[in-house]
């Protein structure tokens, strides 16, 4: 188990990911090759359209005329009678606004706490001169392939009196073994000489971690931070198991109610605007608007952080 290691590209050397592409101009392309290239471009274009189409549909629907929307079946490929009432209703919905607030708390606290525990723990476990490092790592990795299951987890949370508290959402998910392994591998690739020279200057463990090593493994830190943020933003299952108090619900649980569980009640609770007489007509519109609003933060960020994912994690370099 210990030999499970992830080689990490971004850190060690600042090598850019170079994609190998066949050089078309060097050797004259054969005709079958040309046909294949044309086929490939067509297929990928079609696929890209298939990937983006549902998102476009949701977006255009969310800014369309609600009465038109209710009569329309099939994909909405252009907005009809621009209308932002859906978004107004979303921001006027108390449950949703509170859900947003809760999610921001959960994401922030869980990510900061998780990053601290992960980084410090990964550093210690990456030190070769630590007698128990390998044993600990084995016990930790074992939890990736075997666990108690949801019912025992629930019972333990009950016994710890964490049910129905914010900690029930934050604590059980704050460390991910996968991220720990990424971080540990990153630390173990830094040449030991750097740490040794800092030690001679009298630096302690924490100084070594945060001032000497961390700047060298920035890419890994960014990657696991992203993984944590996305995981916490999107998580709903633990909250649905451990929380009954609606005041504590994260955004995703509110979304589940609106989008999946009960569309009947939603319409009623949505009619907070006086102008809205026919709440039912706005039901669809609000659903689409809420999808856009809740997904926007993650979608807006990801093109900028894609390079971390790409140069990022790669399972490989397995020592047998």
């Amino acid at each position, binding site marked *: *188990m210990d030999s499970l290691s992830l080689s990490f*590209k971004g850190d060690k050397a600042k090598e850019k990911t170079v*994609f*190998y*592409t*066949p050089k078309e101009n060097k050797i004259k392309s054969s005709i079958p090759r040309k046909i*294949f290239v044309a086929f490939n*471009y067509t*297929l990928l274009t079609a*696929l*890209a359209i298939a*990937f983006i189409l*549902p*998102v476009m549909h949701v977006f255009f629907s969310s800014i369309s005329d609600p009465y038109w929307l209710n009569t329309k*079946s*099939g*994909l909405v490929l252009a907005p009809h009678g621009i209308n932002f009432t859906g978004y107004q209703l979303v921001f006027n919905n108390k449950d949703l606004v509170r859900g947003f607030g809760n999610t921001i708390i959960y994401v922030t606290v869980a990510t900061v706490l998780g990053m601290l525990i992960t980084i*410090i*723990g990964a550093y210690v*476990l990456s*030190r070769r*001169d630590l*007698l*128990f490092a390998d044993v600990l790592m084995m016990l930790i990795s074992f939890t990736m392939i*075997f666990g*108690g*299951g949801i*019912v*025992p*987890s629930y*019972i*333990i949370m009950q*016994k*710890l009196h964490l049910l129905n508290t914010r900690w029930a959402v934050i604590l*059980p998910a704050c460390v991910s073994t996968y991220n720990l392994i990424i971080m540990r591998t990153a630390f173990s690739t830094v040449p030991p000489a750097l740490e040794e020279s800092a030690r001679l200057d009298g630096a*302690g*463990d*924490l100084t070594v971690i945060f001032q000497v090593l961390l700047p060298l493994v920035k890419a890994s830190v960014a990657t696991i931070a992203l993984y944590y943020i*996305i995981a916490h933003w*999107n998580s*709903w299952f633990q909250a649905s198991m451990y929380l009954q108090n609606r005041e504590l619900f994260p955004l*995703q649980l509110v979304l*589940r109610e*609106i*989008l*999946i569980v009960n569309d009947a009640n939603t319409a009623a609770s949505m009619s907070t605007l006086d102008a809205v007489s026919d709440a039912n007509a706005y039901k669809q519109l609000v*659903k689409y608007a809420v*999808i856009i609003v*809740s*997904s926007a933060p993650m*979608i807006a960020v990801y093109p900028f952080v*894609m390079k971390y994912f*790409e140069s*990022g*994690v*790669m*399972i*490989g370099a*397995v020592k*047998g």
Partner: protein
Amino acid sequence: MSKEKKFTKAAIAKDMRRNWKRYLLVLPLIMFYIVFAYLPMSGILMAFSDYKPKLGIFGSLVKRFVGFKNFTEFFGSFYFWRLMKNTILLNGWSLIIGFPLTIILALLINDVANKHFRKTVQTISYLPYFISMVVVCGIVVDFCKTSGVLGTMMTALTGKTQNLLGVASYWRPIYIISDLWQGLGFGTILYIAALSGVDKQLYEAAKIDGAGHFKQLIHVTLPGISQTIIIMLILRVGMLMASSYEKTILMYNSQIYDTADIIASYVYRKGLMDGDYSYSTAVGLFNSLINLVLIVTTNKLSRKYTETSLF
């Protein structure tokens, strides 16, 4: 690995003297795993007792020990074969369809010479991954209802007006297609990274030997990423029984339990909805054990035949 570590008394004492500060630093991490991973594992004991909250996990085990009764009850129940079949079919089809498609898509993207086109395709295909599972399921529910995009399409095709999520035979296609939509693009990242690591000189050498693009694919590209493929396969097979029950729980309904209900969703219903703790722990344990056997076996087979393994 360097030299063997010896856990003699003297070695432990020396290690503690020298490294106690570091052990202190790693303590929060250790506590996390004890409380949120190993304590729940001890909860597995509930499977062998008739758990009463008042007695606690160990008290119930001592005073209300029932042996394998919960297991035999499950194996003998009407649900057992249906759940096994649904779990294996859902995850099996996901694997058979999703695994090769991811590799093929990575190869196709990798073959694109135009940088901008490649970047655009990648950016768009990763996008659904960043949409939360709740929202993806919300979109699926919306598309599948009678007046939804897919619902009306199927009405036109079959002449029957129905909510697609209420039809048992549609469940697996809906599950798998929505999975592909969300994860296919993002799944290629790993392979594209692996492809970029294939030694370029090998391609040059193959070209000099007169190998065309197809031969390069067979003799250079695929061997170059075979290790990644095998490791991903081990991971996927190992997850065969554990893969996302969240999606099932979000979208299924009693009308389609015939195909949609899997072991994990059954555990969730029995344990957390009905409060049948001991029985559902036993069913969950059965699921985890199969999983463990699967991952250890695939790993062993892979080590034996391909000299690539996860652990």
